[in-house]
């Protein structure tokens, strides 16, 4: 009889442990499937946008030496304009896939979508 009581609580402990482990896994992996766009200036995160849940147009004007305008809308993010010389950032176009990156070197501004199917891109 004593054994039975212990067995019940044992199951409870194991059950809680399993649920806790699953929760942990869930929170670690949450949003894994989503395309998260990150805007950094000088390595510091300025803005983070979930492109899969975002509904309104977002305009970001980071604080840099240059006049940079970044727009996120319709599941895409892009450099709309920049006062830099080459405008490579603007020419990069619209980013929508995981791993896509656009960089404005003069303004030290990076827009990237986290994830991606490859570990790195060589160019």
């Amino acid at each position, binding site marked *: 009889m*004593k*054994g039975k009581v*212990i*067995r019940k609580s*044992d199951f409870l*402990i*194991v059950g809680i*442990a399993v649920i806790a*482990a699953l929760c*942990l896994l869930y929170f*670690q992996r949450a949003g894994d499937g989503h395309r998260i766009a990150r805007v*950094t200036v*000088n*390595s510091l995160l300025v803005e983070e946008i979930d492109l899969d849940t975002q509904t309104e147009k977002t305009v970001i004007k980071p604080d840099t030496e240059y006049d940079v305008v970044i727009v996120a809308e319709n599941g895409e993010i892009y450099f709309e304009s920049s006062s830099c*010389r*080459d405008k490579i950032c603007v020419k*990069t*176009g619209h980013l929508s*896939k995981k*791993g*896509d*990156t656009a*960089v404005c*070197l003069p303004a*030290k501004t*990076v827009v*990237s979508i986290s994830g991606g*199917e*490859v*570990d*790195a*891109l*060589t*160019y």
Partner: protein
Amino acid sequence: MGINAPRSKKLLIALLVAVLAAAGIFLILTQKEYSLDFMAMDTYDSVKVSGLEAKAAAEKAREITENLDVNVLSRHSEKSLIYALNRDGKAKIPTEYSQYFNTMTGAFYESGGAFDFTLGKISDLWGIGTDNERVPEEDEIKAALDKAGADKAVFDGGTFTVPEGLSVDMGAAGKGIALDEIRKAYGSMLVRRAVVSLGGSILLYGKGDFTVGIQTPGGSGYMAVLNLKQCCVSTSGSYERYFEKDGVRYHHILDPETGYPADSGLVSVTVVSDSGTLSDILSTACFVLGLENGKALCEKFGCEAVFIDIENTVHVTDGIKDKLEITDDTYRIEESR
């Protein structure tokens, strides 16, 4: 048994829970991941590390790259070793860096001069990627070429000596050197896995498999994927930095023989090597040499390479043939001969 069984079971379950918890905590700690972006060596750099010291390791990569750039390699930074070398015609090379200068000198001779680290003055004439980009006059190029040439530089293992008017430029080796220094540092840190990209030159560090996309020349995304174990990967492409004048495209990879942008029928060369310095140097040298001579050079150094020519044909060295996967069907692999 009626009394003992539950007790031993209880113990077993408690033990199981403890082991699971310990394993879980260990897993979470070692899987800890940290990413960092920064700008150094005139490019966009990114680091992604996992392991107990993920954050410290990512910051270490940044510190090493910035320090090498500003204090050692940049010919524009007044604090740098190379700046002093170009100004004084002489500089003492710290022993920790001497191997890199040996590699560079060796690569110059082995490549028949296709890799030349003394083209600073000629790069300045073209000014590609700066406000002063232009097509120089022929006699300007000739005059600058006469003063250049790594055969005029002497490295005795301790001191580097160059004649007056020669400008050492580490542009084709610097990122590779930084990758090698970062890998050295990671050897004594708790790093499980790391991917370091310095302007597209990559260090893959740690156990397991890695995938590296090769940039579509002149396009976005990648046209092929390399499946690799830990190593370094570097690419030189004519689509990267260039300007156009009167309908002609002038890119940034200069042929040391002519002083003009290299014209060898290739648009991109990717080199895979255990050494970052070699992969960086050889990608440039192969781009200048062209397919056949480039392949021979890689073989000499025990490196593998992927060449893309102007007709979108992809040529691969034997060692990585089965590791390359073309993902864009406008490119085709050359059948082996």
